């Protein structure tokens, strides 16, 4: 009889905090600057330098803890994690070990289930090493990222499938973005995921030997990587082999987990309390202040969108799916106070275009500009169909909607004489459909209307055209 295995997965997610400066020095916390330009003696690990804790980083860690239902410790302790690597200037990383800032908590999976957390701790990011192709003996180090504040969110090993790991990450990212703790940009490494994966025979409770899977740099990589690692382990176990405790790296191009250099495994990090930083003490007042400044969480926002803007539950859900979209919507409505139309436009043309562009990011259009377009449409200056063309042009060019309407010649035509001419031409060009309509086939009206709109290049005012078309058809009954 074959043994069936179940996966035991724990995730370690590193989230860069959205602070203005680094965690222990005054250098800017920013992605994309030229290498080694956001550095100072402190984050370069020069002799004699000392860390000074960024208060904002602490607040954001607490905020994350609040959003995820953690216990916030009134006293936590920083510790040195010792290892040598060129992108770690001090030869140790300042992290937290046995007394992290948050304990417990959970991440909802979105279907009523949730995954328990072990802890959240504060630490500093390391720099980045580059091993350029053809660089010969040389490697390069960029220390801009060194000292960027991180929280590491550690789940209990209670995730059972790659699918659940995926949901965990999606929901965690959403909460971190919502609370403005982390911008969630996995491509830029603001959010990074490592997975501990082991298998055990179904029905048993002892944990199998785990491997650590690193470099899961996207949702997709997380799912595929864990799936592949589970499959790899299952194959070994069913073949009678044993799993080696090792660190694997997900090779997204080849779609396989690859063992990292075995040296990486034997680390004794020799954690000990960081003597340069006193224990982090959090008063009740401080915790209250952080709680009071807490941004609205997704569930609360969805409910508010229903009550405040009268949106349907489904629409409110879509619009609050990401904090960015929700914020965009609210800004549009602030300038164009017709929430239903704004919601329709976002859920329709806006999200459709976003999807076509295959991004999760907002389209490059300011909410104020979209509000202007919707106002033009509402005022009759442009038809909804032409409005969509203007919107696409706005995304393309970044120009103002009023200018684009003129530039593209998309002013709405409401003039009876001009429209009647178009209607007459369309009816003359489609005698079959006219006959069908007159024979009782009402549906043909839609087709004819479409032809009329096409002939006006979307500019015809539907409010004028619809009765005009019907009247012209009726007139043909003679």
């Amino acid at each position, binding site marked *: 009889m074959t043994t069936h295995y179940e996966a035991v997965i724990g995730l370690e997610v590193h989230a860069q905090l959205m602070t203005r400066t680094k965690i222990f020095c005054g250098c800017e916390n920013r992605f994309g600057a030229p290498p080694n330009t956001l550095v100072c003696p402190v984050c370069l690990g*020069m*002799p*004699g330098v*000392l860390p000074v804790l960024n208060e904002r980083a602490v607040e954001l860690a607490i905020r994350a803890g609040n959003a995820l239902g953690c216990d916030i410790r009134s006293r936590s302790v920083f510790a040195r994690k010792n290892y040598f690597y060129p992108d770690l200037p*001090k030869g140790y990383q300042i992290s937290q070990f046995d007394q992290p800032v948050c304990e417990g908590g959970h991440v909802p999976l979105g279907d009523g289930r949730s995954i328990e957390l072990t802890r959240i701790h504060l630490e500093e990011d390391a720099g980045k090493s580059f091993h350029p192709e053809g660089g010969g003996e040389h490697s390069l*180090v960029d220390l801009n990222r060194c000292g960027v504040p991180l929280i590491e969110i550690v789940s209990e090993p209670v995730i059972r499938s790659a699918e659940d790991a995926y949901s965990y990450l999606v929901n965690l990212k959403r909460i971190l973005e919502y609370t403005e703790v982390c911008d969630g940009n996995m491509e830029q490494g603001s959010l990074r995921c490592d997975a501990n994966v082991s298998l055990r025979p179904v029905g048993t409770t002892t944990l199998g030997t785990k491997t650590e899977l690193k470099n899961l740099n996207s949702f997709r990589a997380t799912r595929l990587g864990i799936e592949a690692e589970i499959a790899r382990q299952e194959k070994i176990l069913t073949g009678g082999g044993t799993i080696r405790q090792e660190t694997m790296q997900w090779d997204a191009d080849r779609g396989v987990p690859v063992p990292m250099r075995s040296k990486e495994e034997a680390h*004794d990090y020799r954690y000990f309390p960081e*003597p340069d930083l*006193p224990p982090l003490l959090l008063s009740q007042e401080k915790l209250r202040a952080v709680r009071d400044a807490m941004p609205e969480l997704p569930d609360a926002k969805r409910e508010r969108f229903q009550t405040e803007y009268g949106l349907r539950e489904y629409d409110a859900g879509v619009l609050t799916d990401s904090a960015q979209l929700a914020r965009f919507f609210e800004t549009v409505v602030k300038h164009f106070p017709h929430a239903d139309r704004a919601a329709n436009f976002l859920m329709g043309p806006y999200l459709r275009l976003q999807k076509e562009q295959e991004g999760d990011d907002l389209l490059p259009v300011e909410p104020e500009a979209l509000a202007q377009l919707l106002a033009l449409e509402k005022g009759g200056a442009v038809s909804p169909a032409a409005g969509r063309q203007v919107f696409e042009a706005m995304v393309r060019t970044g120009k103002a909607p009023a200018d684009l309407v003129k530039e593209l010649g998309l002013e709405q035509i409401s003039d009876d004489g001009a429209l009647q001419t178009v209607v007459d031409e369309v009816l003359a060009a489609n005698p079959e459909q006219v006959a069908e309509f007159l024979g009782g086939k009402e549906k043909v009206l839609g087709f004819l209307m479409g032809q009329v709109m096409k002939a006006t290049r979307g500019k015809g005012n539907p409010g004028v055209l619809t009765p005009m078309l019907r009247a012209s058809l009726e007139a043909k009954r003679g």
Partner: protein
Amino acid sequence: MDLTRATITEIAAALDAGSLASTDLVEHTLRETGRLEPEVHAFLHVRDRESLLREAKESDAARRSGGVTSPLAGIPVAIKDNICTIGTPTTAGSRILEGFQSAYDATVIEKLKAAGALILGKCNLDEFAMGSSTENSAYGPTTNPWDPARVPGGSSGGSAAAVAAGMAFTALGSDTGGSIRQPAALTGVVGLKPTYGTVSRRGLIAFGSSLDQIGPLARCVADAALVFDAIAGNDPRDATSADIATGSACDTLHDSIDTIRVGVPRQSWGEGLDAGVEASVRSALDQLGPAVAEITAIDLPLLEASIPAYYLVATAEASANLSRFDGVRYGLRDKQAGTLDEMYKRTRGHGFGTEVKRRILLGTHALSSGYYDAYYLRAMKVRRKIADDFARAFETCDVIALPATPTPAFPIGEQIDDPITMYRNDLYTIAANLAGLPAISIPCGLHDDTLPLGVQLMAPRFEESRLLRVASHWEAKLGTLGRPPRISANGGDAR
């Protein structure tokens, strides 16, 4: 005025009166340095004459226009070379930092400069402040101005020797387990280790971060108080810096001490204490007696245990603190290495001296998985108990008096291959570091009429004013030693 003996207060008065100029101080210092350095080797770097004279002239001009308020203005100060200074090398006495130039000034340097002091140069030390003899410097030992065959103590041996020889008016040192007080005692000068957190550590190349403090070595207690007042104070760039206003130690220096109760630990008179040192300290206590309320015996039962506890805590911290010297960004890098690991090993293997490597290994071991509880954690427990012992002792006394060192200065080379004996030099000084207390060593006479000895005072945390006040009164009874006769300008042999 004899500039080899004059106090800062006297010099400042002469500068104010116009009978002396800062340029005279620079000339004196450079002349004496030129004469004595070949033998003493207290300095790793003396700043160039032009820069010093330019700054001295600026200081004199500022004084003439009434722009000088600090008594340190215009006075050249020597700096231990583990304190970062712009414009000079900062080597920590190590090959691995040969020629290293700091991009910033330590907070204490900023403060000295703000007070108008001139930075004279950088003093020799045991590599990374690890040692009790200054023999562990990668750039050769410093000799004791009282006897060139003997060590000046350490690790601030260069700072102590520079002051003792009259080359410097005052100097900064650092004290992790006695590194200011022990060399001060062995060279016959005053050495103050302030309360942990009183003087900013920013810019001090870390050895044992939870123990290190910067402090002055000086010709007299009043000078030490002046320098202490100038460098103390909260520094928001040092998270371990205390945010406590302690007030000026100078202001209360001469207040009466007739209500002060002095505790003397019974454990002071134990095994290993040189008979001459004991006699000298007892005689000093006899002289203090009439000035204070009472002298009583107290107990510090863990004095002996302070040595192993210290050598675990300090080395554990050092093992991490010294990881940054990896050849990647600055300092020495071995160019022969073919791989990263090899580069680390060869750079650190060649860059660090024997004692530093010994302590990195010790500390690494103390933190290793499986040993952490037995070594590091246990040492931390002892450390807490020692602090508790002091707290209990200070319920019955106001200051504690004890020897500064178990012996006078020992011959160069005698203990260098015997670390356990060497570590015992810190027997009387370590406990103050473990408990974070302020402590001072002042001269209490000569051993066999040739070698200086020191007596030590400790006070509760942040009680520098009390500590310095008692020390000042005691010093008045004991007298200062002045410059060793053998090197004095008239008749001394400088070889």
